[in-house]
């Protein structure tokens, strides 16, 4: 809706409502007032006419009474008088004279006591007997007014007044009768003062018949019965007057009622009033057409509507001008924005109005100007930047060319790389072991088919995930995580072997023994960027190991019994050696020695088997180390004496109590001391010592000999199985290469370390550092 409409509509609508309300109120007020005024007019008119009629009848009544009282008529009844006939003639003459002078009475008669007309203005009626007439009968008693009737003798609409004529003598009585034409009343009724054109006054008798002419019907006399609400109300007053014993005053007040509006006998809507006469039961009715009565109000309504229309028009014009005044600058502003929107920033709205809209339009112009300015700046900038962009694009095109060249090179390189990668993939897939690679964030980047097979995870499940979340390596023994070999590859940057007895938890939560190693991956600068882990399903190996271990264990046990048998039998032979020749005695000694070596070898095998099967038990118990070592040295006395070796054990605390595994300690002491005796030539020197370390929680057991030493080339592997110094083989051919291996393993199991210093042909010193308190270890079997 336009602003103009928004302003005009409410104003006009409000004006319409107010004006209509005011006009209709005034109209209905006027109608009401008019109704009251007319009612009063009618009442006044009908009252005055009724009063006239009453006055008229009263005067006629008095007139006839006065005539009847004159001597000239009384004398008529003086029949005894001699002049009786003369008297009658005189009376008749007087009657004629009265008729001549009186305007209202058209017939005057004197009736005798017997009802015979004695004298009359109507000569032909003299002598007629009127004794049965109501005016004679009633006229004998008092003055009587006969209601309107049609006189057949005269053919006139009449009314009559009769009055008794009293003579001097008693009992002599006549009646004077005057007849009056009804038209005498017309003068009174035809006066239309206070009534309009349609105003009408007429009289009805007590039976409801019209006795005066009606407006539309002159001949209605006693022929037309008028029946309307007004006449009915009026006639009812007669019955009221008869029924109720009202005082004269009350009757006076009760002789008329307020005017009403009704449909009259002619079917016209009228306002009417009525009044009853006093001397006779007549109703005086006044009516006026409502259409005429309220004609002025119709004019008023017409005028009101015209007035409303004019005022509304004026309001519309005012509202239109006001709206125009408000909307014009807005429209102008809007048109301006339309033009500016289309790009014409030079356009100025420029309204001159001093109100807010004017100010707005001027602000708008300023804004447009500002936009124009800034657009110009932007244009400038855009132009500048476009130039730059063109320049840059040129540069980019140059660079693109360069890049394209590089890309071509890269593409070639990529092809080569792809070939390399294909090769690597092929290699990885061809490898019989599980292989996976983790990046520096420990995320798995490569996972080969065998790895999938062993772990049960698919490549898709593991790639991109932290290997710690997927691949759980644990110790078989205590089921703690065993990822050290991977973590150490990262931290130390060196190849790390997986610990023995490592299990991998598969996807289905079953466990599989695995073995192998991890290796760090380094970039060209040596920075560790990942780690490659190789592992294999070691179930078969583990099983084989177990079988081997069990075999060795059982075999060793089974070997021992016969070995012991051989030893004991040879011992018995030697005990009774006297019975044998010298040579045979030596054979028996050789058998005994061989069986002892074999026995030692079996023990070693058993220990190795237990160590490798992970079945060594470490049971720490209280040992007094110094006495323990001294005890063993005593056992070796025969050997050292044989080779004239000077063995000393001087450097040691007086007592040293430790909590360790007895068999383990014995293995270490026995192995190192017996070795030193074995490989130290005649007249050599062996020094054994025990000292506590600075921290007091460990001790150092040292065996120093002046033996053949360990050749440099064997030093690295001297603790390995089956490894012996090359020179040692010349000294002692039957060495097994188990001794130092077992010693090293035992030291590890007891939580200690072993190292040596050696120079060929000069001697060797072994340093064993062991904790005073070793940790217990569940395994099943002790050292032999």
């Amino acid at each position: 809706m336009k602003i103009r409409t928004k302003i005009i509509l409410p104003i006009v609508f409000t004006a319409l409502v107010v004006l209509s309300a005011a006009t209709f109120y005034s109209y209905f007020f006027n109608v009401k007032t008019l109704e009251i005024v007319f009612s009063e007019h009618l009442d006044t008119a009908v009252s005055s006419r009724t009063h006239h009629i009453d006055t008229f009848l009263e005067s006629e009544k008095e007139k006839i009474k006065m005539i009847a009282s004159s001597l000239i008529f009384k004398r008529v009844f003086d029949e005894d008088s001699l002049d009786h006939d003369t008297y009658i003639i005189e009376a008749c003459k007087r009657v004629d004279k009265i008729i001549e002078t009186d305007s209202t009475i058209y017939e005057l008669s004197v009736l005798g006591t017997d009802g015979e007309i004695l004298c009359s203005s109507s000569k032909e009626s003299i002598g007629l007997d009127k004794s049965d007439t109501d005016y004679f009968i009633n006229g004998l008693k008092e003055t009587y007014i006969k209601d309107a009737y049609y006189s057949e003798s005269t053919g006139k609409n009449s009314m009559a007044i009769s009055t008794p004529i009293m003579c001097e003598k008693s009992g002599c009585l006549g009646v004077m009768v005057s007849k009056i034409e009804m038209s005498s009343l017309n003068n009174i009724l035809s006066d239309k003062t206070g009534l309009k054109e349609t105003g009408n006054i007429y009289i009805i008798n007590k039976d409801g018949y019209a006795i005066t002419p009606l407006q539309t019907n002159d001949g209605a006399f006693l022929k037309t019965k008028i029946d309307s609400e007004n006449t009915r109300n009026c006639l009812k007053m007669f019955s009221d007057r008869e029924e109720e014993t009202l005082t004269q005053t009350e009757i006076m007040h009760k002789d008329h009622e307020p005017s009403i509006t009704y449909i009259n006998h002619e079917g016209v809507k009228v306002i009417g009033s009525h009044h009853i006469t006093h001397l006779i039961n007549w109703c005086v009715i006044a009516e006026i057409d409502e259409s005429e009565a309220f004609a002025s109000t119709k004019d008023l309504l017409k005028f009101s509507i015209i007035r409303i229309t004019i005022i509304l028009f004026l309001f519309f014009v005012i509202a239109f001008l006001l709206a125009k005044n408000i909307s014009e600058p807005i429209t102008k502003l809007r048109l301006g924005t339309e033009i500016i929107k289309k790009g014409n920033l030079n356009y100025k709205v420029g309204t001159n109005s001093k109100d807010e809209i004017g100010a707005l339009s001027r602000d708008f112009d300023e804004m447009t100007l500002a936009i124009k300015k800034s657009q110009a700046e932007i244009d400038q900038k855009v132009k500048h930047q476009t130039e730059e962009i063109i320049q840059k694009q040129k540069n980019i095109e140059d660079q693109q060319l360069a890049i394209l060249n590089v890309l071509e090179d890269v593409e070639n390189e990529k092809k080569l790389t792809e070939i390399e990668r294909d090769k690597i993939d092929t290699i990885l897939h061809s490898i019989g072991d599980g292989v996976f690679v983790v990046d520096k964030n420990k995320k798995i980047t490569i996972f080969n088919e065998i790895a999938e097979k062993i772990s049960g995870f698919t490549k898709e499940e593991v790639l991109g995930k932290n290997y710690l979340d997927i691949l759980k390596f644990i110790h078989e023994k205590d089921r703690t995580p065993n990822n050290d070999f991977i973590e150490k590859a990262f931290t130390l940057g060196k190849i790390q072997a997986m610990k023995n007895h490592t299990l991998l938890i598969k996807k289905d939560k079953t466990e599989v023994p695995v073995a192998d190693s991890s290796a760090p991956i380094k970039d060209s600068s040596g920075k560790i960027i990942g780690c490659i882990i190789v592992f294999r399903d070691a179930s078969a190996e583990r099983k084989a190991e177990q079988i081997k271990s069990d075999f060795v264990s059982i075999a060793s046990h089974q070997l021992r019994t016969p070995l012991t048998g051989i030893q004991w039998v040879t011992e018995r032979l030697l005990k009774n050696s006297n019975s044998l020749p010298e040579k045979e005695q030596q054979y028996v000694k050789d058998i005994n020695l061989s069986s002892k070596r074999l026995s030692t070898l079996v023990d070693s095998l058993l220990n190795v088997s237990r160590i490798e099967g992970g079945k060594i038990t470490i049971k720490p118990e209280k040992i007094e180390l110094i006495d323990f070592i001294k005890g063993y040295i005593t056992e070796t006395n025969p050997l050292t004496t044989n080779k004239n070796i000077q063995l000393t054990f001087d450097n040691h605390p007086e007592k040293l109590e430790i909590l360790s595994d007895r068999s383990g300690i014995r293995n270490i002491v026995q192995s190192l001391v017996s070795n030193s005796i074995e490989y130290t030539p005649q007249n050599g020197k062996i020094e054994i010592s025990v000292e506590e370390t600075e921290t007091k929680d460990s001790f150092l057991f040292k065996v120093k000999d002046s033996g053949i030493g360990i050749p440099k080339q064997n030093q690295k592997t001297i603790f390995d199985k089956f490894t012996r110094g090359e020179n040692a083989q010349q000294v002692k051919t039957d060495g097994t290469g188990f001794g130092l291996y077992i010693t090293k393993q035992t030291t590890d199991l007891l939580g200690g370390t072993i190292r040596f210093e050696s120079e060929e042909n000069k001697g060797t010193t072994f340093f064993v550092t062991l904790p005073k308190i070793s940790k217990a270890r569940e395994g099943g079997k002790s050292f032999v």
Partner: protein
Amino acid sequence: MADIKIVLVEDDEILSKVIKEELEEADFKVYLATDGEKGLETATSKKPDLVLLDLMLPKMHGFEVLENLKKSPETAEIPVIILTMLGSDDDIKKGLKLGASDYIVKSQHAVGEIVDEVKKFFANESHPEQNKIKEEK
């Protein structure tokens, strides 16, 4: 010492023969049983002064024999020395727990040494107080 009776329970023919001979030479009266059941039977009937009991025996394991001996009031007082081949700590400890007086690892000793051990045992037996002191140590 011919009045000292020893029941030797050992299944190996040669080993038992050699030990028996050595013991008899040392004047012990030796009754040999070659399986666990016979060992228990002989120890019960002969009421020896000592039982030398091998562990790996046919028919009844040495530990079972030991248990039965210690259970029966007749034989409960008879001292038992376990003869073992492997010298496993577990075996030794279990034996001592079941009531054995001592143990000898056969493979670590010459046969003469075994007899020495027996003699040493009886020497300690004859001086119970000394033995007691040793135990306390």
